[in-house]
């Protein structure tokens, strides 16, 4: 039976958006852990570490996120390791997010002038002290706008988790559309909710970028 698309459905969609946000938080946290390690490995003075990290980034950036989701969700359960949608998503998004954040952060680390390392070393600081007190604080400022930009991509890409049975915003839209038969109204609403989440972030990122350019 077909029902009307009403206020109740909109409320449901807004509620479903919390899973989109939860998934984004999970993906970002996982991706940040992987990305931080990759970024540091990528600027390591040891060539094997650099090559390993670079290989990882090349492979992940050259493969679709959807394939990683399928690999962990369907692939592992056939291999005898049944995983739930959360676990599969956690792995896939961490691997994917890590590769992109790793590159963004490596860029930020090498954007800090090499003379800053030298100045720290010349004062007798250890490598870790130089990293922690001199390089990182400057790199964070450089990395913040593109990191927020990536987060916007991440929010939109959580919709792919719908394919492994996650009921987040997009999946909830599909379900609502199927039962109300009002795809146009439903997906416009879905798009608006995504936009309302992403727009403030892009604005924020743009403002930070402007401020950074002025400060330089």
């Amino acid at each position: 039976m077909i029902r009307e698309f009403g206020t109740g459905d909109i409320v449901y969609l807004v509620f479903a958006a919390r899973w989109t946000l939860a998934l984004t938080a999970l993906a970002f946290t996982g991706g940040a852990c992987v990305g931080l390690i990759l970024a540091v490995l990528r600027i390591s003075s040891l060539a094997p570490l650099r090559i390993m990290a670079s290989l990882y980034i090349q492979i992940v950036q050259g493969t679709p996120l959807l394939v990683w989701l399928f690999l962990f969700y369907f692939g592992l359960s056939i291999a005898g390791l049944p995983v739930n949608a959360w676990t599969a998503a956690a792995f896939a998004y961490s691997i994917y997010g890590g590769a992109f954040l790793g590159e963004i952060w490596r860029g930020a680390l090498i954007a800090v002038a090499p003379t800053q390392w030298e100045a720290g070393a010349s004062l007798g600081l250890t490598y870790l002290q130089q990293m922690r007190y001199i390089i990182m604080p400057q790199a964070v400022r450089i990395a913040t706008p593109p990191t927020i930009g990536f987060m916007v991509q991440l929010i939109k890409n959580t919709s792919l988790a719908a394919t492994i049975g996650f009921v987040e915003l997009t999946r909830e839209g599909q379900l609502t559309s199927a039962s109300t038969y009002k795809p146009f109204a439903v997906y416009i609403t879905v798009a608006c909710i995504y936009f309302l989440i992403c727009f403030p972030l892009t604005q924020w990122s743009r403002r930070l970028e402007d401020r950074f350019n002025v400060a330089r």
Partner: protein
Amino acid sequence: MSRVELTNVSKNYGPLRVLNDVSLTIETGEVIAIIGRSGSGKSTLLRCLNGLEPIQAGHILIDGVKVNDPDTDLRKLRQNVGIVFQSFNLFPHLSVSDNITLAPRLVLKQSPEQARKIAADVLARVGLADKIDALPQQLSGGQQQRVAIARSLAMNPQLMLFDEVTSALDPELTGEVLRVLEGVAREGMTMILVTHEMGFARHFATRIVFMHEGKVWEQGPVADTLSHPQTAELKSFLDAVLN
């Protein structure tokens, strides 16, 4: 024991030999001005002294400690060897006070209060006591360089290296930095300066070292060396910079 002793030091960048069999001895309290054309190896020589650049042959001793020895703790050595760079290299995200106190707190384990007191002292020595809470970008180039000197002084080094510290400054700002250097020299600091400031070298250096093609081409007491160059290369260099 000499403060600095270089014996047959050679350094290559790939196939390019930038230091070629350099030997030089510097005693405590000396102020050495290293002069020479760009590309003659003067800055490289300075950077080898605190281990920022490795050398391929010879050895460098600072207060008897071998710099080019894998067993030497370079961090410990660098606590005694201050270096000031052409481009200041202040930490732009830190206040003047934090720029100066960072290493004393982390490396010398001074308390924040103690470190800040020393920061106030060294800033007074470079004439910037009122800038202790400023950010580097709020200062002029000359002031930034004076903070960089203060940052180095705060570690209480036994030897200070100055790598063309006035070259990035507008002419009207070099004077204030040179006056700070004079003050440091008067306090008896052992100093090695790579410099283009012949006036400063003439008045405050104890010895001139002229480098050419990666070698110590000529050296000697300032007045003598500058007025009676022994080699054609130094003579033509002096003609070029003095006229």
